[in-house]
């Protein structure tokens, strides 16, 4: 929320500031490829599995009965193994893939019923997308790539180049505007992809495995970059990932897909503390839970803190807790934001937490 936006309120900025507004609403969306969709739909109703339906009708059920709501300004991560339907799901949000059944609404408009022209307007104005393989145009400079969406929507050259340059500067690539994509590293290419998506300032960003092709170090750097951009200017982001660490870092909520179906939609700590099934659990079997939990999550109200042990705030990382608890005589007290005592963390409890994450 910038001051400029407050001084000169436009319809769009107003909409953005209503934090709890439903930005994306998906209701009972299905995607069935090939075969006879109606027959496949009927068989799904009878409780048959994807494999049975494929054998009987030749139809592939990619997404079934997906329903969720993404609030304005929320980062909503859809996770799943490959083939779970997450890429199909995100493409139904801008109708690169048409849902077979069900509805998708953006800003209260049902996009499944839109004609071509309205759909093109929506894609130009309200949403943009970042791709796993970057999908930059090799024959265009970085600046032209960043301006792609603006060129397509017919902005004049000076205007689009100014905006594209602004977007490139926001991702730290202002110096490379005249380069060609082939001269950039993978991480820089995806920054261009991000700048292209930001240049027309859309309220909704769709990111399909946007950082999956990058090496781990650059991936973390890009996640930080995204978090920073979100701090500066909150957008509604639907982020596809197969990496739980990533989902935990950037997601406000995580939706887990299995065989085309959502098995759990929850906040990151709920996903870890109350996984819906073994499939969900399998995602964080190898994940460092200590990076997810904060002091407040493992504080035990039933434990008395030791005398004179340093107070820990509820949002302290477990690494910080470790350095305090290991040097203290007793359990460390944990205080919440409102100053209330949440409980204490003993050495044993801490060791158990670390042990669980191995």
């Amino acid at each position: 929320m910038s001051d400029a936006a407050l001084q000169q309120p436009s319809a769009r900025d107003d909409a953005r500031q209503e934090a709890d507004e439903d930005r994306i609403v998906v209701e009972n969306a299905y995607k069935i490829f090939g075969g006879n969709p109606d027959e496949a739909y009927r068989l799904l109703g009878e409780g048959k599995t994807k494999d049975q339906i494929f054998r009987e009708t030749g139809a592939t059920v990619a997404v079934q009965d997906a329903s969720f709501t993404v609030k304005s300004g929320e980062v909503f991560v859809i996770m799943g193994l490959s083939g779970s339907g997450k890429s199909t799901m995100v493409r139904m949000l801008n109708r690169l893939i048409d849902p077979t059944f069900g509805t998708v609404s953006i800003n209260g408009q049902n996009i499944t019923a839109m004609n071509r022209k309205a759909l093109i307007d929506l894609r130009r104005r309200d949403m943009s997308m970042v791709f796993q393989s970057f999908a930059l145009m090799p024959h265009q400079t970085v600046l032209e790539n960043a301006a792609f969406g603006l060129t397509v929507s017919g902005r004049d050259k000076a205007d689009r180049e100014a905006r594209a340059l602004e977007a490139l500067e926001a991702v730290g690539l202002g110096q490379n505007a005249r380069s060609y994509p082939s001269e950039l590293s993978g991480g820089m290419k995806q920054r261009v992809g991000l700048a292209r998506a930001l240049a027309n300032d859309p309220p909704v960003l769709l990111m399909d495995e946007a950082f999956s092709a990058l090496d781990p170090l650059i991936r973390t750097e890009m996640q930080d970059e995204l978090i920073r951009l979100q701090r500066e200017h909150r957008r509604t982001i639907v982020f596809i990932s197969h990496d739980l660490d990533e989902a935990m870092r950037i997601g406000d909520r995580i939706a887990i897909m299995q065989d085309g179906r959502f098995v759990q939609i929850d906040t990151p700590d709920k996903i870890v503390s109350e996984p819906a099934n073994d499939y969900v659990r399998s995602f964080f079997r190898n994940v460092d839970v200590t990076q997810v939990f904060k002091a407040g999550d493992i504080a035990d109200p039933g434990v008395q803190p030791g005398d004179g042990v340093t107070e820990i705030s509820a949002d302290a990382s477990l690494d910080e807790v470790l350095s305090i608890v290991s040097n203290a005589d007793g359990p460390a007290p944990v205080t919440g934001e409102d100053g209330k005592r949440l409980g204490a963390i003993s050495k044993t409890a801490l060791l158990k937490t670390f042990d669980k994450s191995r």
Partner: protein
Amino acid sequence: MEFNIEIGDGVSAAVDYIRNNFQDGLDGIATVIEWVADGTFIALDIMPWWLLTALLVVLSLWRVGWKFSLFTLGAMLLVVGMGLWEETVNTLALVLTATFIALVVGIPIGIAMSRNDTLETLVRPILDLMQTLPPFVYLIPAAMFFGLGKVPGTIATIVFAMPPVVRLTNLGIRQVSEENVEAGLAFGCTDWQLLSKVQFPLALPTIMAGVNQTIMLALSMVVIASMIGAGGLGNTVLTGIQRLDVGLGFEGGLGVVVLAILLDRITQSFGHGATGGLFSFLKSVFATGSRAEGHSGTRDEAKEASPAHGRNG
């Protein structure tokens, strides 16, 4: 038991039918082709030999490199020295004309094929037929419809040379990565924008390979087309054969080879960008100038090639 299927009679009947009923259409086609062919020939022939040579040398320098520009200079001097300048220019004009028309017709067909599977299935066997029929076969109907001379020669050349550019345009557009197409659509491209801003530019290296092949086929056909009076270097070769004059035949053949190498290298360079880093500064100078002059016959080729220029530098 005798069992005859009279395909030959059928084809003859069809040719007669077309001649009797569509003469106006044929005349129209002939007029257009003659106009383009004459225009190209005059544009090339109006230049003194040293000017055209200089232009080709500059083009070689800009697109390929300084070594190749030396070859170009030597090759052109050789052609002049052999006394085959007129014939070479004539052949070049025919090749450029046939290529130009083959591209104007072939690229849209390739684009249409890439967007429609049914059309692809229908056009494929026709392309197979066009490519596998012995080139001499085209001479007969071409001569029957259009008589003897430049026009039937050009038409036979167009038919023979078109398949590669159609095929490779289709292939190139189909091979554009799915995510690039999705990116185009996701940012709100219309059908036309998707084609002109994403599919065509990304398919350009493949399409240029097709253009190159089309030019090479056109060159080989132009020699054969001299049998129905297309003229040029083919005529020199033909005369050599008729008189059993090995020297003359060889000279004509050498002229064809020289042209082939020049056209091949220069058109190939448009497929993967310029390599002459040393002279890249010339690019800005000649980027507009030489395209208008050097490509008098192939306007659309220069236009298509332009997005590829910046690729490597």
